[in-house]
């Protein structure tokens, strides 16, 4: 005996299209539709279903709202992620936000590899009005991280450390990141208290593997989804939060220092549906 499906084929297809088009992936899309089917059985009016879907997504993501203002003076925030996902710009935005809140911040330019990475951060530091700790190109990133934490401790500030972009499958670079984390831990017990992974909203299912690998390497405590002012809808946060339980801290919605918003589930869901 096979129970009659909750939606007719055409309705189901339209819901699936919406979710897959938003980069949910087929497994997550089907799971969401299944859950919706149990709640909205027999409803076949597409508009009503889409509204119910939006609500269900917002509700589900509400369980994964992180706190962008959690970091306290004396704590360390490490920003990690693949190449070009918006780490450096996120550091600028976070530093700006916390400085406006009266929290002292010291930025660490621990990307010692990419051309003009430290310079990029220095320009931001100047615009935001926050000190940037750096060394010359090619220096040991862990050493920069260490210096930054020391400087932040002395100033009772938040140490906000930018790292180089790296591919999640690159063993050597993931080892380097583990070392940076270890060295920070040696400078201050329990640090880094916050390890935030930046994700590019325009990417596809690879985001899930990124989250897994970075999490397994250094323990990710929050996600920052950037470039949500673009066309990408970052539906992959659904399978990521489902599997790893990591909260979403904030979103990037532009290239300026003000373009950071705390994660708001309703708005996020409204972009998708």
């Amino acid at each position, binding site marked *: 005996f096979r129970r009659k499906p909750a939606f007719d084929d055409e309705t189901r297809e339209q819901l699936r299209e919406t979710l897959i088009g938003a980069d949910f992936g087929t497994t997550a899309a089907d799971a969401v539709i299944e859950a919706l089917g149990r709640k909205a059985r027999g409803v076949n009016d597409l508009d009503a279903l889409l509204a119910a879907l939006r609500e269900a997504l917002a509700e589900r993501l509400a369980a994964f709202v992180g706190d962008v203002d959690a970091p306290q003076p004396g704590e360390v925030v490490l920003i990690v992620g693949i*190449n*070009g996902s918006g780490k450096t710009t996120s550091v600028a935005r976070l530093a700006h936000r916390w400085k406006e809140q009266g929290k002292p911040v010291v930025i660490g330019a621990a990307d010692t590899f990419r051309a*003009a990475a430290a310079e990029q951060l220095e320009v931001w530091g100047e615009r935001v009005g926050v000190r940037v700790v750096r060394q010359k190109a090619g220096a040991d990133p862990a050493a920069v991280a260490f210096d930054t934490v020391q400087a932040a401790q002395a100033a009772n500030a938040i140490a906000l450390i930018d790292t180089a972009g790296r591919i999640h499958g690159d063993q050597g670079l993931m080892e380097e990141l583990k070392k940076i984390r270890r060295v920070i831990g040696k400078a201050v017990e329990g640090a880094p208290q916050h390890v935030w992974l930046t994700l590019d909203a*325009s990417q596809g299912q*690879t985001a899930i593997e990124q989250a897994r690998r970075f999490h397994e390497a250094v323990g990710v405590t929050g996600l920052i989804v950037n470039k949500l002012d673009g*066309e990408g809808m970052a539906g992959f946060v659904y399978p990521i939060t489902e599997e790893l339980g990591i909260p979403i801290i904030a979103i990037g919605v532009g*290239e300026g220092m003000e373009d950071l918003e705390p994660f708001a589930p309703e708005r996020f869901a409204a972009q998708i549906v």
Partner: protein
Amino acid sequence: FERLTEGLTGALSALGGRADDSTRHAFIETIRDRLLDADAHPDVVGDLIERLENRLSRPDDEGRPASERFLTGLEEEIARILGGQAEPLRLRSSGTSAVMVVGLQGTGKTTSVGKLAQHLRTQKKNVMLVPLDVKRPAAIEQLQILGRDLDIPVWDTDARQKPVKVARAALKAAEKQKVDVVIFDTAGRLAIDQELMRELTQLRDKLRPQEILYVMDAMAGQTAVQTAERFVEAVRPSGMILTKVDADPRGGAVLSVRARTGIPVKFMGVGEKASDFEPFDPTRIARRLLD
């Protein structure tokens, strides 16, 4: 293409390898989902499957099972979409050629400009780089450092000037200096930013480049096609550089963009160094697509 078949043989054996309608339907749906999860666009996947079903409806004189014919057909269709050998750059046989590099934020344009410069230099071309990203902090510096590392001249762009003005001055100078190829690095921009897309069109009109390269991250998702189409509307790129292929993504986005826009993929970035640059290898992507 052996690995392609291996990946799907699993799906096949799980379905008992029978040839009846419901098994065939389940098999096709498995492939559809596999490709969607590889970031391929549903319209492209739909077309692909439709073409394969048409192939299957024709009789097979070798008497092979439908599933095997389907898989072989799939490999062939993917290879056909991705194109055979990488197409060469369109450069002038004499005089200065202009190459313009465009794309979304963070896709690897500036890094790729350095890589392309190195590649052209090994072909004995005399190259000049022109930074046109006057907005991103230290973007000009980034390209200057890359140029310096490669010992390739970089135009001294003034960040306070408009990109179109800088570009014209640089191109004039390059022509005077008999530079073979001038590569223009533009700022990353959203495809939906009308003003910035207009700027790109204006730049193209002023430079009349021989080659406009669309730089796309190989990890792009379902919005890759609509994004690429907007770049096509603005400047009709003549080629693509696919970056971060070393992240080993399934590659559905490049399959889809190639299928829908027809833009040939000329090069792929396989790492961060200037030497991590290769002519596009369609088999590498094809293999990963059906993993």
